[in-house]
């Protein structure tokens, strides 16, 4: 799975969870760029990412993520382990 595929998968997830008509993200996008991305939405996004990409994301790693790019890297590494 490529980083681009993961990125568009995440865009779909954000669309659903943040109830937005469309979502465009870049490697440097952060939670603060979205109004509805609070701590509850954050948990929902991590769960949805786990289910969509069939990976496990630990609570400690999820807590340290700063940008979408880091999340993509995390998923990418897990998928290609």
């Amino acid at each position, binding site marked *: 799975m490529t980083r681009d595929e993961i990125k568009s998968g995440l865009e779909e997830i954000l669309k*659903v*969870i943040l109830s937005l008509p469309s979502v465009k993200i870049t490697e440097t996008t952060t939670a603060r760029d979205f109004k509805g991305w609070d701590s*509850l939405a954050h*948990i*929902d996004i*991590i769960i949805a990412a786990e289910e969509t990409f069939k990976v496990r994301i*630990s*609570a400690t790693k*999820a*807590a340290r993520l700063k940008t979408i790019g880091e999340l993509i890297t995390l998923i990418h590494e897990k998928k290609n382990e």
Partner: protein
Amino acid sequence: MLNHKSYQHYLKNEPSVTARKERIAIAGNCSTESLSKVIHGYFADEGISLEILESAYDTVNLSVLDNSSVFYQKNISFLVLFYSPLKLRDEFYKSQEKSAFASEFISDFQAVIQTLKKKNITVLVTSLPTSLERCFGDASAIIEESLIFQLQLINSQIKKTVQENSHCHLLDIEYLANRVGLDQFLSEKLWSMGKYPCHTNYYPHIASHIFKIFQAKSGNLKKVLVVDLDNTLWNGMIGEDGIDGIEPFQEFQYYLKSLKDKGFLLTVCSKNDFSNAVLPFRDHPEMILKEEDIAVFIANWEPKSTNLRAISQQLNLGLDSFVFIDDSPFERNEIRHSLPEVLVPELSDDPTEYITLLDQAGFLENLTFSGADKLRTQHYQQENKRHASMESATSLDDYLLNLGMKSKVEKLNASNLERAAQLIQRSNQFNLRTQRLSKSDLERMASDKKYVCLSFSLEDKFGDSGMISVVICEKKNKELFIHELVMSCRVLKRGMEEFIFNAIIDSALENSLDQIKGEYIRSDKNGMVENLLEKSGFVLGTLKASKQNKRPTFIGRKI
């Protein structure tokens, strides 16, 4: 498990503008924020706009013991007390004396429950899944200092408390966790990230449990099971295979029989000739259900929707209290289409799955259980005999006279409270104000001199109908106010109505009150008693001087 829509669906779901408004409260030792949103979304799908009052994370004791708490400022249907075993685990590790952990928790818990009782608040308490880590291996379950030993102790004490307190009901989270598997249900990750009590995938299940209890509390109960015969109660077609060619599904029949003993009316609706259909009930040695277990038995070639209407009329019970059990997808669809108010659980084509499917279809919630439940089918069968006898009588008075009716009027007391609460919960049509007083309300009123609480039973030559009416009146200044009046529709038009009002007048006289006030509050279902007060001599909306000596004046107010 039942399939629900997704967590995300309910999380964002909003009620329509026309939805009925209700309010509950939730408090827990865990985060209940997104759970509350899901409950709100679940109720929205059921046409209810639910406001949920929440206490902050882990402030159960504080918010319950605080008199100015938000729970006490507005009327709520009930309070959900949600306990996560993961929070208890964290506290257990910090506690000094491990073997006293449960007793300390329970003494706080009891204080919470007793406070809520004084505040007259109904409580739904969660049970605990207890299979967490085991420092002593298998022996943990028997070693007092272990976590799961203490959790099991807490769990059994919670259940015991609920059992002993009529204002409490159990929200059996332990059962739900067992059904889905604890590894799926609990999520250490979500606990660590957000203090979630379980995985969000199961929030819709929890919401549905709460909704079912809510429904039962509001009196929306299922009462009648309509069962098909061929390939539902037995393997084979009686019309073609004959009595020796069919094979009864015994486990399923035992299950239905236990539902009947719990108070459901079992009825049969089958496309068969009656003489064929009834044969196995009479002569097949392996049949568990017998003819006397069936309240109404219909076998003909009419559409099933026509027959269900007939059953509804005969039992005098609304179709919205019906559950239709049929192996044929065609028949299920016919009923869903023609009678959408009937609950039609999806059955699989594998009869070994019937019990699980019905058990989880969500119509079994029932907040009360009394010994009288077992006799319900018998009562309806007696009713059939009465009908037959009425048809042969020369006049209505003649028929009533011949019944040899005796009614016993009793004050509510410990021995009849449970049945009274149940009657109030189950009566929809003959219900003057639909107050849905609970058992704990009745307990309180029965011991309060301000109230006159009466129960009526009825017996005649065909049998004992048991308690069939409850009347709660409140003494206000010089008047007696009819706070609640319910009667079972089984005994309509037998003069009971007049008898009950005479008893109310007697109570007023005994208490030297010279006025009786009644009030009709319209619900979706109680049109039957709309004119009851006028017919019983009440004058609408105005005070009127009494003409008969010492007899109280009736007045009525209509809403």
